[in-house]
């Protein structure tokens, strides 16, 4: 366990000192969402109608932005070899790295989302649900994305390949994330959506670290 916290601590420290990733992700999120009122016009009811979809699609793209750096730096400087050679299971270390990735990208997105929801004139009934879906959905995005990032390690133009691999897998999260918010706005129960999002998070938590670790071992051979 102390090893898990060790790697989270190290990755957070690296992210804080390098600084760029979290700022870049949130800036992308904010700027892209701000583009929509310019693109589709300032009519409040149209913006309100598309707000949940716009927020989720943009959050999804933003969280993908920083994925290709998740293992790349460690791969290039030899750290990944040493991580694979520690007595700790690589699956656990992957989980640590993903946790750090979520804390530096997913969490800032969650904080920014309600502010942007106001900008898009989202109905106030949807705010709590928006936060809940983000809380359950963004870690799933990080977990699935890590799998893709590990698969494209060492490939040229890995970033493009990564989005082709990962985006289709993001679709279920998107559907239920948006569905929950729309249900909340219309005053319908949201439990089912949230439970499915939670189920997807648990499944990703249990399965993706194995796949990611296997892909990393393959990349190191």
């Amino acid at each position, binding site marked *: 366990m*102390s*090893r898990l916290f*060790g*790697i989270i601590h*190290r990755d957070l*420290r*690296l992210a804080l*000192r*390098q600084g760029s990733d979290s700022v870049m992700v949130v800036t992308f999120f904010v700027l892209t969402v701000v583009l929509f009122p310019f693109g589709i016009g300032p009519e409040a009811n149209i913006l309100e109608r598309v707000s949940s979809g716009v927020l989720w699609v943009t959050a999804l793209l933003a969280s993908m932005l920083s994925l290709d750096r998740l293992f790349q730096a460690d791969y*290039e*400087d*030899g*750290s990944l*070899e*040493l*991580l*694979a*050679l*520690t*007595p*700790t*299971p690589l699956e656990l270390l992957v989980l640590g790295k993903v946790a750090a990735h979520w804390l530096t990208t997913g969490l800032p997105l969650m904080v920014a989302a309600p502010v942007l929801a106001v900008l898009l004139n989202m109905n106030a009934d949807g705010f709590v649900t928006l936060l809940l879906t983000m809380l359950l959905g963004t870690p799933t995005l990080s977990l699935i994305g890590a799998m893709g990032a590990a698969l494209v390690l060492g490939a040229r133009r890995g970033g493009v390949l990564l989005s082709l691999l990962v985006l289709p897998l993001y679709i279920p999260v998107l559907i239920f994330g948006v569905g929950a918010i729309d249900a909340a706005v219309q005053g319908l129960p949201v439990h089912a959506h949230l439970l499915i999002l939670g189920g997807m998070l648990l499944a990703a938590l249990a399965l993706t670290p194995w796949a990611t670790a296997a892909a990393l071992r393959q990349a*190191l*051979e």
Partner: protein
Amino acid sequence: MSDFAPNARFSGHGLACLRGERMVFASLDFALDAGGALLLLGPNGSGKSSLLRLLAGLLKPAAGRLAWNDQPVADDREAHSARVHYVGHHDAVKPVLTVWENLRFWAGLHSPAAGDALTAGALERFDLKRLAEVPGKLLSAGQKRRLNLARLLAAPAPVWLLDEPTVALDRASVKRLEADMARHRAEGGMVILSTHAEIDLPGAAELHLNRFTPAAPDMALLAGDGEDWL
């Protein structure tokens, strides 16, 4: 630590390594007892680095098996990782972390029991103590290499796998490394090392890897495909 037991034995039988389509070496046997050292020799491309990666567990042998005290290593990968230190071509030094933070992280990850005292001792030993608060990006190549080597002492493990450890080191540092290897072996550790430079490793067995390169059929086949293979 039990792995430092005086009767420990690290051995490989019939090892073969396949890189891409090429058989780098085949039917390679070795055995190393506690306190022993093995010097890997051979021209570029003869498989020294591949063998070290294979011994560390980064590569899977195409054939043959590795054993620790006659127990197959593949049965318990994590126990094997705990016994092995691998120093490869990359120094794994993070530019934004200080020397101390870099080393402390690797030591803690390798064995949680390794405390601050061991880390401080390792820095002292490799003459990095005055650089402890310096970020990795300001280190020279030789200093990075010394920081990488300091892991050997910061988290004790019986088997040292060193891939050309003397690259970028000055003469004084090479001497210090030789002394550390001698002390490690006196304590019952093992050293497996590849190098092109002169290094003093008294009583080390030599393994000439070019002797295990599969001869005629494979190579003739490859040569027939054209020279772009090489």
